């Protein structure tokens, strides 16, 4: 049996059109490499994070006391069925302006993972968090100096501490800050030298039998907390399931997989369409051969398989190379993106069948579905039609009538557009997609910049304080003591600051919506005739902040529900209006109504709005400060963690532009090679032909680039909303400044300008003999 000799065409076809297949291959391999790298890094990192709890003996929680526990107290705590470990620390400001939380070397709990160098061995050495070091340009061997004392330490190594995978200085912070806050360990001897007055007496605990789930963890924590209050006076209590520094990372990782898969599908569908257009063009070119083969007895199926072979080969090869790159180079690139946001331990690369199937199946399936459909449709015609090169199913209704008043060249150009309509439509979709990616990449810094600029105007007051009752102040078993504590607290939180205005507050969670994070909503009880919040309330009515309205898509008249975090109680509210405040997801109601609704007592208040800093309240009573610094943390951290990713997106968008425009304009010129050649014979110059063919594509490109902007902005607004809704707590309004559009057009057009030169050269190279050829 003779092997099908048509197979011999595959390699020759690849060789003869090497440029075309190379760029398609590169685009496909790059996108597969990126997604494969992302998936492998994500899966490996999530596994490393999950395993770190056991490997590095991560705490089940920690609490702080006003002073060191006595041996008897420690014994009493251990008797509750938990192991307790000292985790004392001191917060020191450094001469570089950042704050470092310094612990002693850990040997029993929250063990350090040494990322490079080693743990400190002498009193002058310190091992600092790897991410904090990266963000501050520090490395082993560098020196750190404490601002207040001038004491210096040499960095012996970089570490990751599992209890600080996200750098939340305080658990109540809206966002972590990996630049201005870090953690470090020093030797036992060195730690003893620190001023004991500046130490925080923190203790980590671990249950003897780990809780089975979060609900059980919650119940056990409450039980432990109650018992603990009877033993020691607490200043902080933070079980692991509530500890943002530990849990935030786990919640954040893995969230981008769906988005990356959509990206992979979109890129591959576009590439498959590009292949479909080029294969379709080949079929037109080879129609007489196809007619002859069909007349000789080749079946449609054999020809479909024949023309499918090269796209499938390129796709398979791209999947192979893409996955190899994904597992090697891109895995590290993506892992580094995680490492730039989170202080994660070292990881082992995990083989993922799921990732491999996804990054192989999606490209091949897109290629097969789109190209088989196109080929089956294209090859449905009879052999006779192919022999006659008449590839229209129905007889043409004739050329589109164009007014003779139009200049000849304009009519000529319009004919080129009509003739290549499918290519130009695909080009328009390609540009839309590439522009969308480019806009996505460029948008991010712009949105953050606008957010930062608008912050001062968006704040309720320059300073906002939310007070905190010291842990253990209220204990039902010690009522008298509790009453005393409350009286002390009320006295201690009064201020002389004349600009201060009291408000009451309550925190509720959003009711779980599919795919969305549960979020804390801060309910403000506003004093009547407030100088800071320009609202007047009637009865129980509530206003919501602009950010809550945008994030949850609520408007006046809508109803929404919120719930208590750890019990079943739910509350329903009706939106009376939207208050222009973007600093937090917040609800505003009268102080009286809030206190009554949550049974807080008529005169209760929870914090202050103030134009100037309040200095006469003890720090221990301040739970959270909301000022420019704390609000800008969100955008600063997003900039660090997503900035690099956005640059990758920009580069990919540019590559996408270039590949699409190159391939489609090449197809158009090749399709018209005969006509171009004949025009040359008739006396048209290369310049004139360039004006005809290159200009048409240029006009289409410019019109598509500019014309697609409104659609892209619309799409991006929705995508941005979805990303922010699904991926982050809080809200950043989507505001694009004009320079983003200018940058986008400039990048797109300059990429095209280079290609236009190539197009012109391609036209110039078409020989006059092309039109005279009568061989295939």
């Amino acid at each position, binding site marked *: 049996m*003779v*092997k*099908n*000799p*048509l197979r*011999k*065409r595959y390699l*020759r*076809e690849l060789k*003869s059109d090497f440029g075309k297949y190379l760029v398609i291959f590169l685009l496909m391999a790059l996108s597969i490499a990126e997604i494969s790298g992302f998936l492998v890094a994500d899966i490996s990192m999530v596994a490393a994070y999950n395993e770190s709890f056991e490997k590095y003996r991560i705490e089940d929680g920690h609490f702080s006391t006003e002073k060191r526990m006595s041996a008897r107290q420690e014994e009493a705590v251990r008797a509750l069925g938990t192991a307790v470990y000292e985790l004392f620390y001191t917060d020191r400001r450094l001469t570089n302006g950042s704050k470092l939380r310094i612990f002693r070397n850990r040997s029993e709990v929250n063990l350090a993972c040494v990322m490079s160098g080693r743990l400190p061995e002498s009193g002058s050495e310190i091992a600092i968090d790897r991410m904090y070091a990266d963000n501050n340009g520090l490395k082993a061997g560098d020196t750190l100096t404490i601002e207040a004392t001038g004491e210096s330490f040499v960095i012996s190594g970089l570490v990751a501490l599992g209890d600080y995978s996200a750098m939340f200085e305080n658990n109540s912070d809206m966002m972590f800050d990996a630049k201005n806050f870090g953690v470090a360990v020093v030797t036992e001897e060195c730690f003893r030298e620190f001023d004991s007055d500046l130490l925080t007496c923190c203790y980590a605990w671990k249950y003897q039998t780990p809780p089975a789930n979060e609900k059980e963890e919650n119940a056990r924590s409450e039980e432990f907390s109650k018992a603990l209050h009877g033993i020691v006076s607490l200043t902080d209590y933070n079980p692991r399931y509530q500890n943002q520094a530990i849990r935030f990372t786990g919640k954040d990782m893995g969230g981008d997989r769906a988005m990356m898969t959509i990206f992979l599908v979109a890129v591959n569908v576009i590439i498959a369409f590009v292949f479909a257009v080029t294969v379709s063009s080949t079929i037109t070119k*080879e129609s*007489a*051969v196809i*007619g*002859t*083969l*069909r*007349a*000789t*007895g*080749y*079946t*449609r199926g054999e020809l479909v398989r024949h023309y499918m072979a090269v796209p499938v080969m390129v796709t398979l090869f791209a999947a192979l190379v893409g996955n190899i790159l994904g597992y090697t180079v891109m895995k590290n690139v993506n892992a580094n993106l995680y490492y730039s946001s989170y202080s994660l331990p070292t990881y082992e690369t995990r083989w993922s069948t799921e990732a491999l199937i996804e990054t192989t199946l999606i490209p091949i399936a897109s290629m097969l579905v789109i190209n088989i459909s196109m080929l089956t449709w294209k090859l449905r015609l*009879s*052999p*006779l039609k192919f*022999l006659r090169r008449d590839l229209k199913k129905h007889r043409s209704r004739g050329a589109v009538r164009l007014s003779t008043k139009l200049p000849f060249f304009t009519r000529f150009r319009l004919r080129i557009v009509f003739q290549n309509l499918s290519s130009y439509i695909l080009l328009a979709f390609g540009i839309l997609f590439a522009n969308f990616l480019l806009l996505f990449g460029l948008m991010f810094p712009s949105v953050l910049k606008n957010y930062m600029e608008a912050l001062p105007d968006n704040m309720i007051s320059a300073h906002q304080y939310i007070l905190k009752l010291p842990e253990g102040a209220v204990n039902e078993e010690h009522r008298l003591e509790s009453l005393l504590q409350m009286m002390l607290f009320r006295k201690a939180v009064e201020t002389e600051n004349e600009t201060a205005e009291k408000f009451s507050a309550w925190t509720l969670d959003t009711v779980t919506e599919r795919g969305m994070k549960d979020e804390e909503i801060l309910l403000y009880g506003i004093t009547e005739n407030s100088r800071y919040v320009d609202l007047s309330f009637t009865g129980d009515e509530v206003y919501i902040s602009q950010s809550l309205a945008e994030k949850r898509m609520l408007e006046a008249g809508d109803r929404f529900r919120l719930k208590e975090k750890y019990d079943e109680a739910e509350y329903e509210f009706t939106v009376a209006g939207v208050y222009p405040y973007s600093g937090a997801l917040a609800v505003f109601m009268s102080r009286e109504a809030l206190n009554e609704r949550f049974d807080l007592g008529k005169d209760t208040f929870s914090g202050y709005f103030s134009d100037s800093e309040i200095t006469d309240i003890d720090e221990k009573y301040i739970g959270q400060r909301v000022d420019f610094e704390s609000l800008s943390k969100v955008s600063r951290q997003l900039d660090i963690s997503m900035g690099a990713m956005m640059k990758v997106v920009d580069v990919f968008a540019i590559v996408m532009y270039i590949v699409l425009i190159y391939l489609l304009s090449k197809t158009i010129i090749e399709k018209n090679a005969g006509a171009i050649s004949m025009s040359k014979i008739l006396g048209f110059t290369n310049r004139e032909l360039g004006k005809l063919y290159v200009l048409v594509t240029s006009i289409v490109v410019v019109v598509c680039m500019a014309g697609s902007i409104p659609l892209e902005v619309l799409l991006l607004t929705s995508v941005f909303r979805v990303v922010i809704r699904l991926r982050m707590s809080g809200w950043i309004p989507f505001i694009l400044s004009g320079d983003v559009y200018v940058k986008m057009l400039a990048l797109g057009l300059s990429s095209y300008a280079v290609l236009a030169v190539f197009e012109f050269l391609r036209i110039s190279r078409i020989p006059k003999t092309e039109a005279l050829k*009568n*061989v*295939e």
Partner: protein
Amino acid sequence: MFLEMQNIRKSYGEGESRVEVLRGVELSLEKGQFAVLFGPSGSGKSTLLNILGGIDTADEGEIRIGGLSVGGLNEKELSAYRRDHLGYVFQMYNLIPNLTVRENIEVGAYLSRKPLHVDELLETLGLSKHANKVPNQLSGGQQQRCSIGRAIVKNPDILLCDEPTGALDYNTSREILALIEKVNRVYGNTIVMVTHNEAIGQMADVVVRLRDGKVRSRKENEVRLSAEELEW
């Protein structure tokens, strides 16, 4: 009879623009006969060839080849019919540009369960020296020889030739005709050729003249001239 066409009718278009191309054509040939179809442009000779080749369908009538009725075959069966029984040679050679001469011939061989030996055929075609060249390295005559090779390598029962010398000069045309004659003699294929060249009629067994979609005459030559003897 090996090949029988009865009352073949074919029209194109509808309403006022309807054109009847074939109006009840009757034709029969014995196995191994060489038939030439003449007729002015529009007489329906190419249409008749296409219907015979299963790449066009008749509106009415019956076609039987070796006892097989072709008229009622569906698309898949028609492909199999072409694959098993037919070879096609066109005025344009329609060779695959990025395959060599040998490979272009193998394209035909692939379709047959018992193909002719490709090397022997290359020798017969006078293309042995050019076996590894691609079509654009060949002259028109060499390309047409290659296309004949592709058509006959599967040793078809019927070889259909549509103006095979239409694009060739005098000497090359004679070479091609000599080759077709040789194929007919050596392999015993039934050949149906459409041409405008009256001289070719002299080398055929049967000469059929079509006009206005009907067979106007059918003549069997008592003496066949060889291709070398033809003059025009």
